[in-house]
């Protein structure tokens, strides 16, 4: 059984590879089995790989020089992974799967890498030269050299003491000893490529290669394949909870922004029969001698409701409020008529902050600094918040207005003020509550969401897909009850 093309390169340096050859020809049976297993594994990680996708892959592979790693990988990607999200998972699974498949085949056949010669070469190598070479290769982003140098580095540093046995630790140790950093190191000599700082992406790539090589050696040493580790949520880089870093949240929000811009428009024309535009019909009828053959309709405008967004920024929802603030930020871009409030113990309006600042970071800083959030105890006081909010917005509420509350409804034992909230909800056309806690925790402890739920539609919102569901509800004209 021929082993599948091993460890194909990825990322920016892919361009270095060439499609020199013509099609390699029929795909051997062994590889077919591997690709099928690979498809199975992709399914296991949640990529929708259908039979037709696999058939496409098999149809495509004989046409390309599939024995070349890049061609093999890209062909499978083009036929199996059909969204950017799927592609991320595809790359991860691809690396994992074919790395393991290669190693397994090597174990079975009893093939060992000629490690001895490599180690000697490492010993002879001047450490300082090695440092320079690696730094240069990282700066150039030369994939092939990086792969070779990763081996040399492990060989060289393996001699200075045994590895810790934990691969992650070893990788970092080697990186530190090589003095590889992405920040500039001004005390180094002029011609040293590390002086200006190394490109972060290539550095990470080098670490990956180190890790892969260490894993390979471990497999070779122990002669067993460690169990496959399913991708964890962080690997997938698909934000799913409020507890992720700002960047990933922001990525989703950018997408949300785009969706918001077009959301609602697809409903245009759904109720086309509603209004005939008499003027345009008459004008069009001139072409047909005054007979109104073609009826012209008034376009159905997408719904752009007036929004009042109220966001809890207290400590119990710290992680969630970053998420929520960025949601507010996105909403501000898409809805003209929108007023925003943040609250802890008292409520304060932040509409101006959002209008002035385009950048999300600046917004969150400004709100943290001087939005005037009266925060004496640091505990949310919902009763008081509703009273103050009602004073501020009651006159502006009308049936076409939408109130959105972002908060966990944890009152710290204080009066929930549900009747005041009911008054606000009654005056507004629609009222939504987004709760960053899973539904399971609702109404446990001091959570009083039940008191509010009867006056509004409450959504749990701790994943981005839930957020999308909410956005759909918000912009769909059918949901309009006003």
């Amino acid at each position: 059984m021929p082993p599948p093309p091993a460890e194909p390169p990825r990322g920016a340096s892919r361009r270095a590879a060439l499609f020199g050859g013509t099609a390699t020809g029929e795909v051997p049976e062994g590889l077919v089995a591997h690709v099928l297993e690979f498809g199975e594994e992709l399914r296991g990680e949640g990529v929708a790989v259908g039979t037709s996708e696999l058939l496409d892959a098999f149809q495509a592979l004989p046409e390309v020089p599939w024995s070349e790693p890049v061609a093999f990988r890209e062909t499978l990607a083009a036929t199996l992974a059909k969204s950017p999200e799927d592609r991320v998972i595809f790359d991860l699974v691809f690396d994992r799967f074919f790395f393991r498949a290669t190693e397994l085949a090597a174990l079975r056949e009893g093939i060992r890498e000629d490690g001895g010669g490599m180690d000697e070469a490492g010993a002879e190598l001047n450490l300082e030269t090695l440092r320079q070479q690696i730094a240069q290769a990282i700066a150039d982003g030369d994939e092939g050299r990086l792969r070779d140098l990763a081996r040399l580095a492990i060989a060289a540093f393996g001699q200075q003491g045994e590895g810790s046995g934990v691969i992650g630790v070893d990788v970092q140790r080697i990186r530190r000893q090589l003095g590889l950093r992405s920040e500039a190191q001004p005390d180094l000599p002029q011609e040293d490529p590390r002086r200006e700082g190394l490109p972060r992406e290539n550095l990470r790539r080098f670490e990956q290669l180190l890790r892969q090589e260490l894993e390979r050696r471990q497999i070779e040493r122990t002669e067993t394949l460690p169990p496959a580790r399913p991708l964890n949520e962080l690997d997938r880089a698909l934000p799913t909870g409020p507890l992720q870093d700002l960047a990933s949240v922001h990525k989703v929000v950018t997408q949300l922004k785009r969706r918001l811009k077009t959301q609602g428009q697809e409903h245009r024309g759904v109720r086309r029969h509603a209004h005939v535009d008499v003027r345009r019909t008459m004008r069009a009828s001139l072409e047909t001698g005054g007979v109104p053959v073609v009826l012209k309709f008034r376009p159905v405008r997408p719904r752009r409701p007036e929004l009042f967004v109220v966001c809890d920024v207290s400590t119990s929802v710290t992680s969630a409020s970053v998420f929520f603030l960025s949601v507010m930020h996105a909403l501000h871009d898409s809805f003209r008529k929108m007023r925003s409030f943040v609250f802890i113990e008292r409520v304060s309006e932040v509409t101006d902050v959002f209008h002035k600042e385009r950048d999300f970071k600046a917004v969150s800083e400004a709100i943290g600094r001087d939005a005037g959030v009266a925060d004496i105890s640091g505990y949310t006081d919902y009763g008081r918040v509703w009273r103050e909010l009602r004073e501020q917005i009651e006159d502006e509420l009308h049936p076409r207005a939408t109130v959105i509350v972002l908060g966990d409804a944890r009152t710290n034992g204080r009066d929930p003020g549900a009747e005041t909230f009911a008054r606000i909800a009654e005056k507004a056309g629609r009222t939504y509550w987004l709760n960053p806690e899973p539904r399971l925790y609702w109404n446990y402890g001091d959570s009083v969401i039940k008191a509010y739920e009867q006056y509004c539609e409450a959504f749990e919102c701790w994943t981005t897909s839930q957020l999308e569901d909410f956005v759909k509800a918000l912009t769909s004209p059918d949901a309009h009850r006003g």
Partner: protein
Amino acid sequence: MPATHATAADVAQGLRDVGYLPDDATTLVSFLAAKLGKPILVEGPAGVGKTQLAKSLAETFGRELVRLQCYEGLDEAKALYEWNYRKQLLRIQSEADGTGWSEVQDDIFGEEFLLARPLLTAIASKEPVVLLIDEIDKTDQEFEAMLLELLSDFQITIPELGRIEATTMPIVLLTSNNTRELTEALKRRCLYLWIDYPSLEHELDIVRLHAPDLDEHVARRLVEVVAMVRDLDLKKPPSIAESIDWARALLLLGATDIDAKTFRETMSIIVKHRTDLDVVTERVGVKLGLPEDSLGAASAG
């Protein structure tokens, strides 16, 4: 056909010859699409050359480009075919009395009275074409469903005429800006290609190709700055076309370096929103590294 395009390398070379620098994935998928007759679904941010890919493919394969620009409310009459209603009316009116209904009916639903729209044009063309369905995400799902027959079998059913099958195999590209999720059924029928903003080196190659006289140092600086600008959260990040425009502008101005001053004067070429301009001035201006006083000195001297 000007080139044979027998291998992926040929396709890459062909694209390069017409001024499009493809990366490996783009090359491979284009090659497969031509070889297997499968449509390509191209996604990616605005301005990475998705539409340009279709144009370049048409050029290198020596085919005509048929383009269908999608928009909200696009329907079959605009995309597929339409009966030329007025012509039919005239035909009926000019008909002498006594002609039977069936004759007239056979007559007015003939190809003569058919207005071919882009999709029908692409299918019915005698010569193979490149069909570009641009911004498919702007249409509604009903339209997508209608495309399915076309994409899987390259045929269109017209009730009055029957089925029209493609005599030649078109290369079909669908582009999407990913503003909404396309249906699984559509994706299933396509090869998928995600084009992202190019890497530094790749963009440098592109800029060099389109502005070959530009100083090497300036070109490198330019792509670095553009990459920096794209990293900011802008309403509209600069596209590749705008990098090229900027390169040409700098060439015209005879710039020898991109410093804070040149940047400020020319950045409106790559940044086109009032609010974006502010953000970019603030962030990139500082990073370009000229302190305020040396700025003054530069303009004085």
